[in-house]
């Protein structure tokens, strides 16, 4: 089985978000970048398929040279080879197009992406890839088993979950649940050393099709002051929620 894991390179969850160029661009100054958390769960599940079912696992990112540290981290966790498509992504569709080309060229059976990236929160790349490829698609995937060419997946729905079956090729939008938090791997020294020798191939983008463009950013308005209520005066809280906030 050949697995492709799509890795989005995103600001660490603790990052403060700022913008430059008259609020038209994200300010990367002082920001730490990491593997998108949803992709990390997917990558770890892919490692399980590698260990238990002999899968090969490649990782791919659409991005500039600055994302290579993130791809190297994925190699250190255990991926076999990495691809970087050398273009700064403009929208989810453009990314999905580029990734689909890699998926077709490499003849992958399983394509693991994340439910959403925590920077633009598009939640669209995996579904668009599946549509481009004509492959089956499971979103919000919290469990995945593969038996030959059959897949059983569980997706989270609002208020519950749904078990689905399909055949490969399959694209998933994965998230926590695919593996447990405690299964996530921190690269060890040996992994980091080995990662240096693994191939990281830079590909030129095939097409530059976009459907949307980010024009301007804005930060939420600062919050008003909090109203404190005494722990012995719960009636006041109820009164505020009822008469002032009108939420109960």
């Amino acid at each position: 089985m050949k697995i492709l894991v799509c890795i989005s390179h995103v600001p660490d969850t603790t990052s403060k978000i700022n913008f430059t160029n008259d609020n038209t661009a994200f300010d990367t100054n002082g920001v730490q970048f990491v593997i998108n958390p949803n992709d990390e769960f997917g990558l770890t599940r892919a490692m399980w398929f590698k260990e238990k079912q002999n899968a090969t696992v490649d990782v791919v990112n659409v991005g500039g040279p600055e994302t290579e540290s993130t791809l190297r981290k994925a190699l250190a966790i255990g991926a076999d080879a990495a691809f970087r498509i050398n273009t700064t992504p403009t929208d989810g569709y453009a990314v999905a197009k580029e990734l689909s080309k890699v998926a077709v060229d490499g003849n992958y059976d399983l394509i693991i992406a994340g439910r959403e990236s925590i920077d633009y929160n598009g939640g669209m790349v995996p579904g668009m890839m599946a549509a481009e490829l004509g492959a089956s698609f499971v979103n919000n995937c919290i469990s995945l088993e593969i038996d030959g060419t059959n897949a059983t997946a569980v997706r989270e729905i609002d208020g519950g979950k749904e078990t689905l079956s399909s055949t490969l090729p399959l694209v998933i939008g994965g998230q926590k649940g695919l593996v447990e938090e405690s299964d996530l791997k921190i690269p060890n020294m040996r992994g980091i050393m080995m990662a240096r020798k693994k191939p990281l191939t830079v590909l030129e983008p095939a097409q530059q099709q976009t459907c949307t463009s980010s024009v301007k950013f804005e930060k939420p308005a600062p919050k008003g002051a909090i109203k404190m209520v005494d722990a012995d005066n719960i009636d006041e809280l109820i009164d505020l929620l009822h008469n002032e906030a009108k939420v109960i």
Partner: protein
Amino acid sequence: MPVLVYIESENKMFKKAALEVASYGRAVANTLNTSLSAVVFNTEDCSQLADYGVDKVLTVNHSNGFNAKVYADVIAQAALKESANVIVLSSSADSRYLAPILAVGLKAGYVPNVVELPKTQPFSVKRTAFSNKAFCETQITTEVKIIGLSNNAFGLIEHPTSLQSEAFSPQITSSDISVEKVDKATDKVSIADAETVVSAGRGLKGPENWNMIEELADVLGAATACSKPVSDLGWRPHSEHVGQTGKPVASNLYIAIGISGAIQHLAGINSSKVKVVINTDPEAPFFKAADYGIVGDAFEVVPKLIEKLKTFKAQNS
């Protein structure tokens, strides 16, 4: 060229998020000087849509239940039939599942997490980005445009119309995916649909202490949620984990009990309208992000709150 909305129902009842989508679709149709069409699956009585501005509804019978590819395909056919070039859907798990497929099918630009009415010329929408830490004005440059509306961002707006209904029999393709099993608690509101969410963190000390959280949620008709470590520790199911790496919460009221208010937690709940925090530590960061706060021990405050709310409910019902 009308605006088209995808209206979701559950057990033949329209979801609140779907009526919000209708309200929003109506307002978009007004700005564009056009009418509003809707596509609805497996629901006979659509009269409620006349209260929320829908002019015409296409009703589809599809007994096999939800399937993202099939539904996307049907909505695409409805869009072509109506020559709609703005399509609006909700932020439900199902809508988010099918929207990217629909977008590719119609060669349409899709923007999720939209919080305001679009601007026209050029067509752009305001959406959240960076997990609610920012907004982004996004242009949609394709002819057909798909808007994913954030939950609870626009609200319900009544707009009576005289609704026309038409049975719609699209071509239904076979699907490559089949549903084996659905597990869904029917007696509980989901975090996505809840008006109120009661959430608790590590301050509760252990899973055995969640009875009072559930009771509080019960009194308020709320969904229960938790912080990430609580689900990592197995005290609560993963489906309750809210925050930047869990579920987003956009409820009217969010009550956080024994949650410190880490940046990743706040990112996921920021779009909730009113936030209440109960914490023993007056320095907890959550107090900077909330609207109402109580410094106090959850084990004393919550039982009192439950009693007082019960009395309040009894008096106000």
